[in-house]
């Protein structure tokens, strides 16, 4: 059971690949994810596309715990996935993240 659970953790990037208060894109099995690093070095992951019109969130702006879509300025709290500003109305899917030995792992359930 533990082995199965561990197998779902996927290495996404190096912890230092992401600048403070920024986001990068991570593609895995044909699916896009966004990996975030906050100003105080916490890491989060969500789906990579905006729920409004599928724009790449990784081209967007991180401010605090908010990611702003680059196309229509819809906003999400990336720690919870909650849509915070229209035209984003549908919440983002979030994923658990852990950092081990300088690598960011995402729990791809």
């Amino acid at each position, binding site marked *: 059971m533990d082995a199965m659970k561990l197998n779902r953790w996927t290495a996404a990037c190096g912890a230092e690949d992401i600048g403070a208060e920024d986001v*990068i894109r991570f*593609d895995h099995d044909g699916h896009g994810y966004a990996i975030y690093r906050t100003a105080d070095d916490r890491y989060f992951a969500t789906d990579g596309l905006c729920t409004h019109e599928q724009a790449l969130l990784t*081209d967007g702006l991180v*401010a605090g715990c908010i990611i702003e879509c680059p196309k*229509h300025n819809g906003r999400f709290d990336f720690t919870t996935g909650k849509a915070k*500003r229209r035209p984003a109305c549908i919440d983002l899917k979030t994923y658990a993240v852990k950092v081990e030995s300088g690598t960011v792992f995402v729990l791809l359930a």
Partner: protein
Amino acid sequence: MLQRRDYSLTGFDAKRAVHNGLAQANWYTCPLNRQELKVLVRRRNGPAIRDTLIWLSAMCVCGALVVHFWGRWMALPFFAAYGMLYGSASDSRWHECVHGTAFKTDWMNDAVYLIACVMILREPTVWRWSHARHHTDTLIVGRDPEIAYPRPTNVAGLFLDFFAIRATAATLHKLALHASGRLTVDEQTFIPETEHRHVYLAARVGLCLLAALIVVCIAAGSLLPAMLVGLPTLYGAGLDFFFSTTQHAGLAEDVLDHRLNSRTVYMNPVFRFLYWNMNYHVEHHLFPMVPFHALPRLHAAAKDFLPPPYPSCWAAYREIIPALARQRTDPTWFVVRPLPHSADSEPKRPAAVALTSGA
């Protein structure tokens, strides 16, 4: 026989746009450095608070002088100034706040957005979604609900637009429709169902405000209240018409490159204050996250990738007026913007790749 296109959002050209891959398509992206962009998109309250205070204070002063000189010829210049601030400068405030970029603090964006919506007589929910679609499908016929200059050019319509007559008539009609709990067929294509109740509520509130204005005028036995609230949307619209026409008029439809369907025009500081730097319109469409106060810096950073800007409003109108005149009889004709040879259409920022799978 003129070749007419169908600018409705449910007609032949709407279907054609989808069929041709022009709907929600991938557009040209300008390859700016990510770190540079992060600085440019940084939000601040200071510039917008300063400008909003100046704007509203100037309106108060002009409004007070209008009241003081009411009934005399001396009131006319103050009406002109008041109308320009109310009916024209409100458009750029509306625009910047619908993007949520004017202020860092979001309730300020929402507050100024609602004030500007009242001034320019726009329904807040409808226009929020309409403008999102405009950014998704800019000047794609059958997709963009904000194409101001459909072809062939309607010259009489342009004169009406100088006083916002067509827009106001359309809004009054739609307020009645929305207040009765209905949307137009076109609106149903870009406003999600979850937002419909907000449209209906705003329309009912809007009609109540208009009714209240009429009651106040009757009670006061004077047109003055409406000359200060409501009618400036019409008599003050001219400058906004002058500014907004430079954005897209005469340029290409159905292209996936904002450099070909939008204009950047250099304007003087007074115009840029009133227009909140929306004269950098190509840059705005390429990077809607960048706030108005950073658009001049964005222009400097991106200009090597963009067509040459128009050096003045005069230069822009020397192109626009003949273009609209020609499109009156030849709707297929449009202005072709020159693209720089060195323009790099590929983003420089690489995506992260998976290191390994399974830990």
